[in-house]
């Protein structure tokens, strides 16, 4: 017969076993001191070595900046991060696959203890994204704080007729506008011919297509704008070549800072400011859908800092961080605005290049390699030289999806490393990734 106290303790134990949310207590370096069952359920599929000894180690591949966030959190106690989404794999899942998106909160209890709360956010994030789009759409429609240009475009994205609102917002006059693609409102490398059509297709499929970013006036100056495209008739009501769309361009420069801050906190890697895994997978999946509809050149480059561990071990963590930030800046300078540049984890980066062939991507990657090798990073007066290796792959019919495309580029990267680093290799049927079996296990 159990005493009342033992019975209560047992009930408490089982309560923690059954809690449908992950609860952990760790030390400041991530070492797990207490952990409940839901945490193990969510984390075991991510653990490379089959251990759950350190939270930062387990999440290293998918949330590389956790330790950095904790270290740079100065208050003695408080929320280090609140329901941050960690993208584990691409897309959404069904059944009992492992969670694709985790929600993680870290609470600093005192100078030695962290409390972590972990949940599976895969479904709620998918719902949120849809909701966010609807809200953005409603915002655009109903809030008339700033001026907007309203125009109609045909099935090729050409402006059908001019009206004064176009000149007010963009400065373009009638003869410069009529019959020309709405790409004129984007800076030079901001949108490509195929993307102009993609947005029309997406508007057909979803009822609208919305994007926010730099726009360009007739005099070449830029403003932060949003473009909303909506079909003027239902998809079934007209022949494709007769389809007409409304395009609303709004100057939202005044909201840019607030929007950017929000965007950054959700979509950007904490350390480098590049897109994070979640943002990358979302953008890349959209790009692959576009490819599926209208195949066109689409390439992917994975980039890895060579001997990065040596940099960390020799010069320390702060220097390692400085090198990663330097590499991130190099990536931004080398690739185009339309390319999706992201930090995948640790010292591994990825770039998706729309409308770019394997050879084209290889050439840009070569340029990156050379520019990185050519200069030293200055870290508090110490010059540090490092190199990068890159693997390139191009999307083609035999590639099943984003995962498979990344695997190909990874295999090419592996080959570049094996050949002595500081170089670019392209995927070809002969390139085999000896570690691929181990990596996917």
């Amino acid at each position, binding site marked *: 017969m159990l005493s009342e106290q033992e019975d209560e303790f047992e009930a408490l134990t*089982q309560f*923690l*076993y*059954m809690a449908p949310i992950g609860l952990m207590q760790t030390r400041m370096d991530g070492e797990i001191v*207490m952990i*409940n069952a839901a945490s193990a*359920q969510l984390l*075991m599929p991510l653990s490379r070595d*089959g251990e759950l000894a350190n939270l930062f180690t387990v999440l290293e591949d998918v949330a590389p900046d956790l330790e950095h966030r904790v270290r740079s959190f100065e208050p003695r106690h408080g929320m280090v991060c609140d329901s941050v989404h960690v993208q584990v794999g691409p897309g959404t899942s069904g059944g009992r696959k492992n969670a694709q998106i985790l929600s993680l909160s870290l609470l600093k209890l005192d100078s030695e203890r962290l409390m972590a709360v972990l949940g599976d956010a895969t479904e709620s994030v998918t719902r949120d994204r849809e909701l966010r789009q609807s809200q953005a759409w409603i915002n655009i429609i109903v809030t008339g704080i700033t001026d907007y240009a309203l125009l109609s475009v045909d099935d090729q994205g050409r402006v059908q007729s001019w009206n004064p609102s176009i000149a007010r917002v963009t400065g373009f006059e009638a003869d410069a506008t009529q019959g020309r693609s709405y790409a004129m409102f984007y800076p030079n490398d901001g949108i490509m011919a195929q993307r102009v059509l993609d947005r029309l297709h997406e508007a057909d499929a979803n009822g609208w297509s919305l994007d926010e970013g730099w726009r360009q006036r007739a005099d070449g100056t830029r403003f932060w704008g949003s473009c909303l495209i909506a079909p003027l008739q239902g998809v079934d009501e007209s022949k494709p070549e007769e389809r007409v769309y409304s395009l609303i361009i709004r100057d939202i420069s005044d909201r840019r800072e607030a929007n950017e801050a929000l965007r950054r906190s959700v979509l950007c890697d904490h350390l480098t400011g590049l897109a994070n895994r979640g943002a990358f997978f979302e953008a890349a999946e959209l790009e692959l859908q576009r490819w599926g509809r209208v195949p066109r050149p689409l390439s992917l480059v994975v980039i890895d800092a060579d001997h990065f561990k040596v940099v960390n071990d020799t010069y320390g963590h702060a220097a390692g961080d400085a090198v990663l930030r330097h590499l991130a800046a190099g990536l931004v300078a080398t690739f185009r605005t339309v390319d999706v540049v992201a930090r995948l984890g640790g010292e591994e980066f990825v770039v998706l290049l729309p409308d770019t062939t394997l050879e084209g991507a290889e050439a840009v990657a070569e340029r990156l390699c050379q520019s990185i090798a050519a200069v030293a990073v200055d870290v508090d007066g110490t010059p540090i030289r490092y190199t990068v290796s890159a693997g390139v792959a191009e999307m083609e019919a035999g590639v099943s999806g984003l995962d498979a495309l990344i695997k190909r580029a990874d295999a090419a990267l592996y080959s570049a490393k094996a050949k002595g680093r500081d170089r670019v290799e392209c995927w070809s049927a002969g390139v085999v990734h000896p570690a691929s079996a181990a990596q996917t296990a």
Partner: protein
Amino acid sequence: MTTVQAVSFDDKTVLKYLDQATDADLDALEFGVIGFDPEGVVRRYNTLESTMAGLSLQRVIGNPLFTVVAPCMNNYLVAQRFEDAAASGSALDATIDYVLTLRMRPLKVKLRLLAAPGVTTRFVLINRRA
């Protein structure tokens, strides 16, 4: 333990033994034993496992394994493998490294997952001397 173990954790015929073992037989083993039916309801639970988990038999027997007793195994590494084996009508005998969270402590163990067509009870064996 005063009795000599009748069967070891990695014995080839352990499933056959467990299926016919009495509760006393299971209690004499030096590894944890959880047996559950096709619906996932726990039917067998030995004393060692009960002690290590801090859960008494009456809290466990008759309850669903993957929600009440060991939710940490409710993923594709463990639960899915039993479902896959049942769906394809094949036998399952796999030993995997795992981390249990009994009493909120991470503990490295070896799990042996056992199921066979014609044997109603499926078993998870837990070896703590991993």
